């Protein structure tokens, strides 16, 4: 249901994605139809079983792929096959460039956007410092841990001052403790930049901890089953996991997703044990 009191930042209507038949393999209906409003300044996570089309949804929203049908609007302008100005994307895989230092990696997008060098220096120094990478500014990604490399990728997006940040399971390869700490940093980034964030994750805990709203998707073809509002305050941290309501949110998500996850691994509908 759309909330008339809030400003819609991005709108998805009737979005579908079908991968056509190829090399003797049948066509794959990967996504949709999906309708979703993303409100300005909110933190929304999307969860769902493996292969349900979460990453496809993000790529369509980012303009990195074309939908089969439906429309996407960002700030009232149609998105179609090109990443709009004001949208930043952080990918699941480590995408830091190994031939550039941390500083050069963070500056990469800015150097291609016509910003003057003094401003680049200021913004990159800020982003590097913000992500706690100041001591490693001259290091190469190969000299950093996985978590630090992902912070480089986030800083590279942050430096462009995006108004909408799309994150595709950015912490998937990290251990649980690092994920919690990275989650805190992401919340800090969200509060200080005021950007709208859409996070794709398969972790129900991560979605429940970080988000204002969590959208649960069905097994392929991914459709939105339900959107849950967490009701967390904006100044939350990873310590929200100690809150009794946190368990209720994750339990609700699991109730919605359990049968869908069973479908995704080929077990079909089964009733949960008592």
């Amino acid at each position, binding site marked *: 249901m759309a909330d008339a009191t809030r400003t819609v930042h991005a709108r998805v209507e009737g979005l579908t994605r079908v991968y056509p038949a190829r090399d003797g393999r049948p066509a794959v209906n990967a996504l949709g139809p999906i309708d979703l409003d993303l409100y300005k300044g909110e933190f929304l996570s999307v969860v769902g079983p493996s292969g349900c089309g979460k990453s496809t949804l993000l790529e369509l929203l*980012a303009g*990195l792929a074309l939908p089969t049908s439906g429309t996407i609007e960002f700030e009232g302008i149609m998105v179609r096959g*090109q*990443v709009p*100005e004001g*949208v*930043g*994307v952080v*990918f699941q*895989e*480590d*995408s830091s*460039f*190994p*031939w550039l230092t941390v500083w050069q990696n963070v500056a*990469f*997008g800015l150097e*291609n*956007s016509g910003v003057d060098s003094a401003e680049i220096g200021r913004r990159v120094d800020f982003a590097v410092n913000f992500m706690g990478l100041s001591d490693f500014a001259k290091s*190469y*990604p*190969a000299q950093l841990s996985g978590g630090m490399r992902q912070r480089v990728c986030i800083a*590279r*997006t942050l430096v*462009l001052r995006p108004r909408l940040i799309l994150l595709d399971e950015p912490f998937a390869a990290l251990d649980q403790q690092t994920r919690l700490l990275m989650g805190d940093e992401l919340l800090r980034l969200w509060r200080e930049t005021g950007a709208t964030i859409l996070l794709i994750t398969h972790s129900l805990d991560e979605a429940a901890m970080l988000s204002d709203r969590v959208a649960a998707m069905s097994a392929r073809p991914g459709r939105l089953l339900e959107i849950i509002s967490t009701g967390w305050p904006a100044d939350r941290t990873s310590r929200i996991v100690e809150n009794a309501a946190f368990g209720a949110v994750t339990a609700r998500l699991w109730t919605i997703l359990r049968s869908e996850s069973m479908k995704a691994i080929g077990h079909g509908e089964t009733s949960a044990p008592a």
Partner: protein
Amino acid sequence: MTRYAWVRISIVAGAALILEILCRTGVVPRLIMIPPSEMMASAWQILASGEIKSDFYFSFVNIALAIGFSVVGGFITGLAIYSAPVLRATLEPFLTSYSAVPPIVFHPMLIVIFGLNRAPQVIIAVMFGLVPMAIHTISGLRRIRPVFLKVGRANRLSRAASIFQIQLPAAAPYIFVGVTLAVSYSVIGVISTEFILSASGIGHQISFAYDNYDNRTMYGLVLLLLATATLLNSSLRHYSQRMLQRWTR
């Protein structure tokens, strides 16, 4: 220097010492081989006298031309084949089976066409060096991680900017392996053709010394050639390894 580098140097020094003893004691006759110490003295004399400066220059220019054409030509060929799927499907089997072809067999035909000058030697050397360069360019471009290209698109890079700022740097370690091979094969191609039919060049001088039983000059030149090729190749290989280590984590 690493421990392994010291071990390598020790092996070479040990082998030279054994050879020195075998030659000095007459186990290996002087007609077959001279002691390594004499080879070194001869190499130094050749360098100091400057008597074959023009041959060095001749070979150097041939090798430089062959490297230039192999690297540039191989890179362009690789890029063209990678960029055109039809060309790739058609030509790739030729490229991969090309290593079984000894380009030296074309030398007589090239002499007939171009005459007895540097052209046949450079062409043969390019035939040696161009294909490995093309194969490694294709391999490097094919190994670019798709997420790098997505970063380019997310940053709204133009096609040219994506090629120069992402694709070429990402493929660089593999392309550089191709450069290393192109350099090695160019040296082999030039020196071996100078051996067969040439009026100048290091290969020609080695062959001339051999024909005249002048072992001292022959081994001096062989040593100089070995030292130069080893130095060149190990420098390139060292740089190539460093790149690969950094890129492929």
